């Protein structure tokens, strides 16, 4: 008797500690980033980093301004969301509500495949196909600009938004839809007045996760945004080259002398990225809980 109980408890405790490892890993990454990043502020003013407007890490004196990189990430992410949210939600609505089962079964694997394409392939496609088209269409300085980056990131965020929104919409209880139709609403009215508002928490969560994906993307933006570290104006900045935080770390990590200010500055940028992703996920969670639809 005692033996069986004991074994059960051991198994439970082991599984618990294994899952606890994920928390530990996250904690360790956090410590690693912040400890090296904060070493920058021994020699460099904090306000100069956070509000600095130029990023010249190799000139004397060093200038480590976060603003061009932060706004670069921001403008590309906003563009990506503007592109992918309407498309994604529309596709999700179609797949879950209006498509016949055969068509839906046909479309879903393609969405999954889109998610599985490596980001460097997207970057290559953007560089070779999309950038020249963008340059000719808008008569730009160069096709490598924020708008090309936004479109590629939008395509990459699309599967996330479609899958999660589609799940959310399908899990709206059938009773609601039937009730709405029974009261005389058309199918479309039911969708946009009853089903989608009921699925709002899941859809918002999918958008937040899409944002998280877009902010963290490195390879694609590095190949396609032109990597020009200037603060983008709004709205004309969308047609100019920009540099994201992620691309900065990827481009410059190779050369830095270990322990130099530049090294710490890159860690500080990484810490900022970590904080932003953390906040985005936290917000997604809170939204999901707040807007969760209850039948009662």
């Amino acid at each position: 008797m005692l033996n069986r109980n004991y074994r059960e408890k051991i198994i439970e405790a082991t599984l618990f500690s294994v899952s606890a490892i994920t928390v530990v890993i996250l904690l360790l990454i956090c410590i690693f980033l912040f400890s090296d990043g904060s070493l920058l502020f021994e020699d460099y003013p904090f306000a100069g980093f956070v509000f600095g407007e130029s990023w010249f890490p190799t000139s004397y004196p060093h200038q480590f301004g976060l603003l061009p990189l932060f706004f670069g990430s921001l403008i590309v992410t906003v563009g990506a969301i503007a592109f992918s949210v309407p498309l994604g939600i529309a596709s999700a609505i179609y797949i879950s509500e209006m498509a016949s089962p055969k068509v839906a079964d046909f479309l879903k694997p393609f969405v999954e495949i889109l998610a599985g394409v490596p980001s460097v392939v997207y970057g290559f496609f953007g560089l070779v196909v999309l950038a020249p088209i963008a340059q000719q269409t808008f008569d730009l300085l160069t096709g490598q600009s924020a708008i090309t980056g936004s479109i590629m990131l939008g395509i990459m965020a699309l599967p996330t938004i479609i899958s999660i929104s589609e799940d959310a919409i399908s899990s709206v209880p059938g009773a609601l839809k039937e009730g709405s139709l029974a009261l005389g609403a058309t199918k479309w009215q039911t969708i946009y007045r009853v089903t989608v508002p009921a699925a709002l928490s899941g859809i918002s969560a999918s958008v937040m996760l899409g944002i998280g994906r877009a902010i963290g993307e490195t390879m694609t933006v590095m190949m396609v945004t032109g990597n020009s570290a200037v603060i983008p104006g709004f709205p004309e900045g969308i047609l100019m080259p920009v540099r994201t935080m992620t691309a900065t770390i990827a481009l410059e990590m190779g050369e830095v002398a270990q322990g130099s200010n530049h090294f710490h500055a890159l860690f500080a940028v990484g810490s900022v990225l970590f904080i932003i992703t953390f906040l985005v996920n936290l917000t997604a969670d809170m939204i999901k809980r707040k807007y969760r639809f209850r039948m009662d």
Partner: protein
Amino acid sequence: MANLKTYVVLTVLVMGLVFLGIGCTDTDSGEETAPAEEAPADEADEAVSESIDIRGSDTVLPLAQAEAEAFMAQNPDKDISVTGGGSGVGIAALLEGEIDIADASREMKDSEREAAAEKGIEPVEHVVAYDGISVIVHPDNPLDELTYEQLNQIYGGEISNWADVGGEDMDIAVISRDSTSGTYEYFKEEILGDEGEYRADKITQGSNGAIVSEVAQNPKAIGYIGVAYLADSVKAVSVDAGDGAQYPSKENIEGGVYPLARPLLMYTNGEPTGLAKEFIDFIGSEEGQEIVLEVGYFPAP
């Protein structure tokens, strides 16, 4: 309550193990154990099937690859692996003891030499070839030559329109390499001087190839690449450093009249031994220097 206690104990145990792990991989003790482990492994490696790792400049890369292929064709039991990444990457790896030879298209900086001294590494410089940096524009661009002064103003930010240097009335898309590149550093020193800095809104590309493909399809673009990467899809302009405009041709670079020419270097830790020495001697031999010409660089005198 008994359950809660078990969970707490086990979580503390896991965290304790993790921090124990961190303690054991403390950098100082790590470095002490690692070389001790590596030394016997290296000797075993060299005894059995000699192999060396070369990493660094993207400019030297095609040369190193061609030489390695020729060398390995003659010595099938030896293995040379060559990677790019930029001069900065190669030198950093040499300082960490990760590779045998670092390719560089620029000299080691003072800060890198200091770091090497701290780690007990003695970098020895070998000149393996000479390279030209070519300034390229789109084939439809009417300009054929540019002076150092004009390049300084374009890359430094003073001039932003092709009309100001004699071209058509359109904005200049100024393209540069990223800061890990030796080509980036060399161009900066030559054209912008010690105190100069690239313009903030330059477009940064991670490789010579990327610059070529952008300039080839963007009529507004200007960029700089190693001469080995010149292709028919772009146009090289003649550069005037004060003695007349010189085209980056083989004769001009070998003859020393083309201003943007620099030595290509390989750095080793101390005087090279074993396979590294054989390889560097091979590059310096007649056969090796012929390969230099084939790749598109110019022989070391």
